[in-house]
C-alpha cells in the first residue's frame, strides 16, 4: 500500500489517539518536575517509556510495520523494566542515614530545584510552546504519524533540558537525560519509523550501557558527597 493511500485510509481515531499518547509523554515529562521521591520519578519515567512503546505498537498495527513490534517489545523491556531496576538500586541504603527514619525512597531530591516549582513549570511551559511552534515551521512531513507528535517530541526534548538544568541532584539529572532520549524516540517514531531494526537495537544497547555508567557515577558521587545533591560540585572552575 502506498503512503498516500495509507494516509487516506487512516482513521482519524488513529491520529487523534496517537496525538493523545504523545501528549501523555509530554505530561509525564512535566510531572517529573514535581516528584520529590526518586521512586516516583523513576515510575514516571517508566510510564513515559511505556507510552512510547504503546505508540510504537499502534503505529506497527495501523501502518503494517512489523519491525516496530519487536522494537516496542525490546524498548519496553529495557526502559520499563531494566532501567527502572538499575535506577532503583540507587535507593538501596538511602534513607537509613536520616534521623527520623524516613521511608525508603525518600531522598534528598525534594526541593532540589534552583527556582521554585511554579517558576520552573512556567519556564518549561514557555520552552515547550517554543519547541511546539518552531517544529511546526520546519515543513517536515510524515507518512506514519500526525505531525503533532513530532512537535510534541521537540517540546519533550526541550523540557528535558529544563529538568536537567533546574534540578540540582544527580538522580533528576540522569532521569532528565533518559527522558530526553524518550523524546528523541518519539521523534524517531514520527520521522524515522523505517529505521532498520538492527540500528534501533544498537541504540537501545547503547542506552543500557549509558544507564549502567550513569548509575556507577551516581554511586561514586554519593559515596564522596554523601548526598545526591550537585550543589557542592563547584570546586572546578576557571
Amino acid at each position, binding site marked *: 500500500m502506498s503512503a498516500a493511500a495509507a494516509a487516506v485510509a487512516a482513521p482519524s481515531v488513529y491520529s487523534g489517539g496517537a496525538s493523545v499518547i504523545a501528549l501523555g509523554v509530554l505530561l509525564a515529562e512535566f510531572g517529573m518536575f514535581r516528584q520529590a521521591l526518586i521512586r516516583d520519578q523513576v515510575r514516571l519515567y517508566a510510564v513515559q517509556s511505556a507510552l512510547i512503546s504503546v505508540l510504537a505498537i499502534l503505529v506497527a498495527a495501523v501502518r503494517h510495520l512489523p519491525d516496530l513490534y519487536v522494537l516496542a517489545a525490546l524498548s519496553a523491556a529495557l526502559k520499563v523494566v531494566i532501567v527502572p531496576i538499575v535506577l532503583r538500586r540507587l535507593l538501596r541504603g538511602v534513607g537509613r542515614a536520616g534521623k527520623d527514619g524516613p521511608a525508603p525512597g525518600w531522598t534528598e531530591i525534594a526541593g532540589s530545584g534552583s527556582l521554585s516549582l511554579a517558576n520552573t513549570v512556567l519556564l518549561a511551559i514557555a520552552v515547550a510552546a517554543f519547541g511546539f511552534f518552531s517544529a511546526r515551521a*520546519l*515543513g*517536515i512531513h510524515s507518512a506514519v504519524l500526525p505531525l503533532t507528535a513530532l512537535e510534541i517530541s521537540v517540546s519533550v*526534548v526541550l523540557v528535558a*533540558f529544563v529538568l*536537567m538544568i533546574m534540578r540540582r541532584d*544527580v538522580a533528576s*539529572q*540522569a532521569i532528565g*537525560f533518559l527522558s*530526553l*532520549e524518550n523524546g*528523541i524516540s518519539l*521523534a*524517531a517514531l514520527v*520521522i*524515522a*519509523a*523505517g*529505521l*532498520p531494526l538492527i*540500528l534501533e537495537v*544498537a*541504540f537501545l544497547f*547503547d542506552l543500557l*550501557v*549509558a544507564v549502567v*555508567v*550513569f548509575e*556507577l*557515577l*551516581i554511586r*561514586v*558521587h554519593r*559515596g*564522596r*558527597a554523601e548526598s545526591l545533591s*550537585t550543589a557542592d*560540585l563547584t*570546586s*572546578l572552575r*576557571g
Partner: protein
Amino acid sequence: MIVVVLLLLILPFAAAVVSLRAPDGVAEAVSAVTGVACFGLVLALVPAAAHHDLVYLSYLRIDAVSAVFLLATSFLYGAVAVYSIGYLAPSRRKRAPGFSRYSRRFYAGLNLFAWTMLAAPMMNNLALLWIAVEVTTVISALLVAIENTDGAAEAAWKYILIASAGLGLALLATIFAYYAGAQVLGQHYDLSFTSLLQAGARLPHTPVRLAFVLAVLGFGTKMGLVPVHTWLPDAHSEAPTPVSALLSGSLLAVSFYAILRYYQVAAAALGPRFPRDVLLVFGVASLLLAALYLLDQRDVKRMLAYSSVEHMGILAIGVSFGAPIALAGVLLHVLAHAAAKGNAFMGAGVLVHKFGSKRIAGITGGLDLLPWSGPLFGVAILALCAMPPFGIFRSEFEIVEGGFGASSDTAAAILIVLVTVAFFGLTVATNRMLLTPRRAGMTGSGAAVLARGEPSAWMVVPVVAGVAVLLVLGLHPPAELTGLLSRAVHQLGVGQ
C-alpha cells in the same frame, strides 16, 4: 587488507579483556604492545586508503579522511600505552593498597577507550558512528572518575551529563539525516554514509540544515566547541594524565571527524556556504574564549585543556575557509595536534609527578630538575604554539594561506591575532614552570628533597617519538602521507 581492519577492531578489545584478568605486569605489556601494533596496522592501511576507499561488509568503510583520524588515534594509543608503564610505576613500587585493582581497571578502560575511538572512524553508517561516539563517552567518563577524588567525581559527572545531553542532540541530527535520506532513497535506507553522499543535491534542504546544526552542536559538545565546551577543562585536568592525552588528542578529533562527515553531506546537499558559516561562528568563538582563558591559568592541565579548545577552534575555522590547501592544513593539523598535545600532556604528567602539584605556581625550575622531560615539555609547548619546524607550523600556515586565498581575510586575520594571544598565555606560564630557578626553602620541606633526574624512562620514550613525528610532519611529510591528505581533501571538497 580486511585482515588488518579486523585486527584493528579485535586487538584493542582483546587487550582490554586480557587486562581485566591478567596480573598487572602482563596487562601493561599487552597494552603497550597492542597500542604500538595498532599504529603499525594503521600505517599499513595508509597506502591502500590513499589509493581507494576500503569498504567491507557494507558497514565498515575506510577512506582517506578516516585514515587520517585513525593515524592520529592509533599513534597516541601506542604512545600513551607505553607512557602508562612509567606513569603507574611509582604506585606499583609503593605497593599502594588497591593498586592491582586500580591498574586492572585502568588498562581495561584505556584499551576499551582506544578500541571505540578506532572503531568510530571506520563506521560507514551515521547511526553506528553516533553509537561509537556515545560509547567513547561512557568509557572515558569512567576513566575520568578512576582516581576517585572529589575533583574526579565532579568532573566525571559533569562530563557524562553534558556530553550525553550533547550527544542527545547529535542523535536528533542522526534521525533528521535519516529522514532527509529516506525522502530520496526510500524508507528502507539504512543511514549508510555512501548512499547519503550519493543522494547529495537531491536531499531536502530543511532537514539537512537542521541535521547539520544539531550535529555541530551535539558532536561539538564532545569536540569542545564554545559554548558547549564546559566539561572539557574539568575532565582533562582531573583524569589520569595518559587519559587526558587521549581525550585531548584523539577523542576531540574523533568528534571532529563526525562533524566532518555531516559537513560532507551538508555541503553536497546545500552547497558549502551554509555549513562553512556555521563552523566559522563556532570556530571563532572557541578560539577567542580559549585564547583569553589561556592568559590566566593556574593549573597546568587546565591550561593544556584550553589549548585544546583553541586548536579545535582552529580546525573549525580551517574547514570554514573551504580552500583545498586549508582543508589539507586542517587534516595535517589533526595529526600534528595529536602528537603535540599528547607530548604536552605527557610532559605535564612528568612535571606534576615530580613536583607533586598541578598548580603552575608550584612548579619551578623544571628545566634543571628534569634533564629530558623539561626540555621536551618546552618543545611540546613551542610546537603547540605553531613554532617552526614542527608540524603545527606547517598546518596552521596552510590554513591561514587558504583563508587569504579564499578571500576570508578578516577571519584569517582574527585567527592570527588570537593564536598569538594564546601563544603569550602558553609561553608565559611555561617559562615560569621551566626557567624560574628553584629557590631552596620556597615551599618548605618539599623543595629540598627534589633531586635532578627523570622519574621513569618509559615516560620519556613516547615523548621523543612524538617530537620525531612533529619534525617529520613539519619538515618533510612522507609521500604516502601527502597522497593520503590530498585524496582526503578531494573527498571533503566534493560538492563545491
